[in-house]
């Protein structure tokens, strides 16, 4: 019976087995697809520098994350912490912990400012990324951040992540082995 149901020829653009869904237009996909991978291939046109980023940051971010990214009541620190990850008081920030600079672009673009996500222009996002990388001493003040330069930025903790080795504790029950 299923075969009979499935045999009906689907309409153009519909799924082959159940005949549901429609093909999105390339423009639709473009407007939805905000994913930025580590190779940066989806990064949009535009560019920014720390000096422009500072201006946007002061207006849109500083209230929560502190005037220089040091953190505040409503937003975590975005700067500092290098050299603390193997100490009893690790400080995990964009500068000390994040392995990829592209993540910063992706996250600010989709999620910040917290109280008005998705409200920044691409140019503003590039500029904010440049400013936060500069504050963390990762790029120079004058460096231009764009779709070509951002994936090249090497984050200090790029090699800081390892795959899941578990089970690492939780002795295997002996009775199972018999």
């Amino acid at each position: 019976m299923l075969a009979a149901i499935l045999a009906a020829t689907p309409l153009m653009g519909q799924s082959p087995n159940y005949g549901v869904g429609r093909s999105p237009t390339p423009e639709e996909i473009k407007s939805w697809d905000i994913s930025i991978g580590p190779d940066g291939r989806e990064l949009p046109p535009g560019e920014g520098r720390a000096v422009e980023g500072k201006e946007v940051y002061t207006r849109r971010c500083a209230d929560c994350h502190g005037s220089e990214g040091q953190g505040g009541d409503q937003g975590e620190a975005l700067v500092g912490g290098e050299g603390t990850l193997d100490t009893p008081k690790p400080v995990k920030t964009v500068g000390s912990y994040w392995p990829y600079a592209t993540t910063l672009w992706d996250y600010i673009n989709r999620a910040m400012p917290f109280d008005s996500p998705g409200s920044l222009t691409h140019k503003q996002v590039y500029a904010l990324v440049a400013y936060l990388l500069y504050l963390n001493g990762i790029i120079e003040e004058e460096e231009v951040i764009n779709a070509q330069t951002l994936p090249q930025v090497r984050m200090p903790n790029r090699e800081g992540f390892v795959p899941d080795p578990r089970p690492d504790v939780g002795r295997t029950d002996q009775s199972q082995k018999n």
Partner: protein
Amino acid sequence: MKDRTAKDQPDSSKPSRRRFLKSGAVLAGVLGACADSGNVSDSGPRTLGDIPSPYGQRSTYEKSVRYTHLSDTPEAGPSRTPLQDSYGILTPSSLHFERHHSGVPTIDPSQHHLLIHGMVDRPLVFTMEEILRLPSVSRIHFIECSGNSGREWTTPEPTVQRTHGMLGCSEWTGVSLSLLLSEVGVQSEAKWIIAEGADGCKLHRSIPMEKAMDNIVIAYAQNGEAIRPEQGYPLRLVVPGWEGNTHVKWLRRIKAVDQPYMGREETSKYTDLMPDGKARQFTFVMEAKSVITFPSGRDKLPGPGFYEITGLAWSGRGLIKSVEISIDGGQSWQEAQFQEPRHPVALTRFRLPWRWEGQEVTLRSRCIDETGYVQPSREALIEARGLNTRYHYNGITAWRVSSDGSVQNAYA
């Protein structure tokens, strides 16, 4: 952002079980020791009751609620399931924990779409109406936030709602993700998917294609009705056994890609920093864990006598094979009984009849799953992973019952 005063709402840790023990006429007879059952008389109402209603409410005598401790940015935060008041294995949808990163969006299902694209032969957009027409599956699974019990590493908390409440178990109904993926035709170079929500922050996670093709459900119903807004209405992922954050709510888009996209929620957060400064990443599976829900922190046993020790066990790797309980500080262990049937990757209820003689005791539970993995002690976990991670804690919990009947987290 506007002023927001932090609100600390007391958790509902008055166990209903204890109320029963104090007032239950039937039980009082059995227990003997239990005082004052009051006078029993034929006191039923002699008036008409309420008429049938369109949507049910619980009795106004029931007060159990989720625990919320609101921060200055409460839209990024949790509420916790009142496990101390739980029965059986299912969590009522109304009491199921929440964890959001930018609040609960309001979504009109007639306007909601799911886009599947990327490395696929035929990108497609589905309406909710279309998804509801497809062959459906129903499964009982737990969901646990990987930050559940996160404070047990360093600063253990007083009640089971606060130690373990980012945990729930529901019957989820929806469509197999693999069905939709075969409709779009995943290309061979696609090794991961990115799942993205329609909430303010468009929360997204990278998930290996192998898992996507295995047993993930795109769910639209929870416990027999549409998923609630705070659980992802109208559509969410259920990723059996994996950390809660991967169960993307308000699902709007799936992109097939060749590599993980290293989003903020899989780099900055939900990674486990080890003492050597390296962090474990993509620590997806929630390992076997159990906890006694009665008696538990801040309960007060009214006096010596019979009690049923009960609790929950679960494993992201499958079925719970056994649960053992120690009432002597971990020296000896006895097998608890299960509520059957047990379901893989679901909460499993265990029970053990117990007579408390009134002395100080420490109660512990530990579980073993079908892979033979044994829930570790807190000490073993800290020994192996240090104290710099807040995630994936599954150590044994110890509740100390004092001679006055009060119960505390022995590690607090």
